[in-house]
């Protein structure tokens, strides 16, 4: 199975149920899409992510939140890319929604009101990356001690500790 080039053209991908549903709902929220290695990623504008997930859920296109995580592309800006891994059990299909966040204002709306399972996932991202989730009822550290300084999974975090 040799690698095929990624499809990044939104026009070629708009037949996919998740993308067509999101485009029909709010065209400006969809910033781009990417089909690579049999996995579909959709880039969503930061202010629309909660509503986008809510739309997909209410239309029955997804019914399970597998994971919420983040990657730091420092020193590139916007440096953070949040990834929501969503699953549809009846359709046996996964989709990844992505949100780009800049380093000086890493804030996004929490999806916890819709998915109680986002509780720990968002707390982990907050703890290790310092991204704040608005509307999360108890956003505090989960892995590191409460009085820890900094966010360890950021690329500019000193691995040998602060001197």
């Amino acid at each position, binding site marked *: *199975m*040799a*690698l095929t080039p*990624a499809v990044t053209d939104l026009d070629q991908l708009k037949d996919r149920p998740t993308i067509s549903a999101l485009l029909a709902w709010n065209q400006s929220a969809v910033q781009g899409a990417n089909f*690579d*290695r*049999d*996995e579909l*990623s959709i880039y969503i504008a930061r202010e629309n992510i909660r509503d986008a997930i809510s739309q997909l859920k209410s239309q029955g296109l997804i*019914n*399970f*939140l*597998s*994971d919420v*995580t983040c*990657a*730091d*592309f420092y020193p590139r800006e916007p440096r953070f890319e949040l*990834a929501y*891994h969503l699953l549809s*059990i009846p359709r*046996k299909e*996964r989709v*990844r929604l992505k949100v780009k966040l800049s380093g000086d204002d890493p804030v996004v709306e929490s999806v916890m009101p819709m*998915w*109680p*399972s986002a*509780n*720990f*996932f968002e707390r982990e991202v907050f703890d*290790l990356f310092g991204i704040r989730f608005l509307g999360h*009822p*108890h*956003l*505090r*550290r*989960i*892995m*590191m*001690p*409460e*009085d820890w300084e900094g966010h*360890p*999974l950021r690329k500019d975090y000193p*691995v040998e500790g602060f001197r």
Partner: protein
Amino acid sequence: MGHLTANPVVDTAGDKTMILNMGPQHPSTHGVLRLLLEIDGEVIVRMEPDIGFLHTGIEKTCEAKFYQQVVPLTDRIDYLCPMVNNLCYVMAVEKLLGLEIPPRAIWMRVLLGELQRISSHLVWLGTHAMDIGAMSVFLYCFREREDLLRIYEMVSGQRMMTSYFRIGGLAMDPPIGFFKTVKKFVDAFPERVDEYEALLTGNRIFIDRLKGVAPISKEDALAYGVTGPSARASGIDWDLRRDMPYCGYENFKFKVPVATEGDVWARYLCRVQELRESQKICTQALEGMPSGSIKAEAPKVVLPDREKMKTQMEALIYHFKIVTEGFTVPAGEVYQAIESPRGEMGYYVVSDGTAKPMRVHMRSPSYANLQALSKMCEGGLIADAVAAIGSIDIVLGEIDR
């Protein structure tokens, strides 16, 4: 960790409730799990898990290692089924690379993966029964687990931290006599499960202790991200091995046990049935085991055989290059999910085109399943919380990572 005041478990109603601290050194929390219980007499009003005592920063460490050096780290995440973690990681990297794996390696992976599922479920069964008070089951379970650990030692040289899977195949061919030993174990195993069931399934005390305890509905299980046997006990008919087959599972015939009650008893029944189904998969894997190579044809990624390395210049160069500077992986991201004994284990690997992963994230099933624990226990008795913790089968190593 630290103080827990953001959603405080405090006495607001006056003098009715009190706070009880359970763990992190409590024997039935299966590791270093701390639970804060707000109790009214014997009844749990609210429960809050406190985790992070075992946080070792594996995800950060991965970013400083070559791709092949991450494999031993994955053993240490879920130490009850290291090969399943190996499998998930190597499959994610193989997906990034676009590597084709030879059939013998795939079937060996399935065989070992299912043996790991059996040994992981045996630890669960033994400790869960011991929490409830049935001490002797533990000894029966660990008798079989010992046989399995010997099998892992045969094939990889290690009993627990096996690191046997490699990107592009397996570390080495299984030794002579390996399949015979496995066959002997697999053939004898159904009788052993009968023994455990004879001790527990018809046991009046055991049934009374588990039935109707700590239930969770199908809707709640979906909302709280529960996967694996715990979800199937609530009626979610979902098994990644059957529904989104990976690693050749489409070639195997097995049933997926499902129950609808969603209580501790249903979770017990589902897991015990899974022991039998895993045994069937092992039998099929042994019968159909193909011959041939156990490594992919990719000299830039897979280390050459020792003999070739000593006799061929080219193989020596590749060996030197892989060991000293690793191999580059085309930029991209993948989320590879597999069915671990506890549920959906997912590895999210991001590559930036260099020889080291830019980000490795593990979506561990215990981490999500633990969130549902409060939902299960609230309104129940403290003693039932012990049964509930055992029934979701958490491993703190993969919760804290």
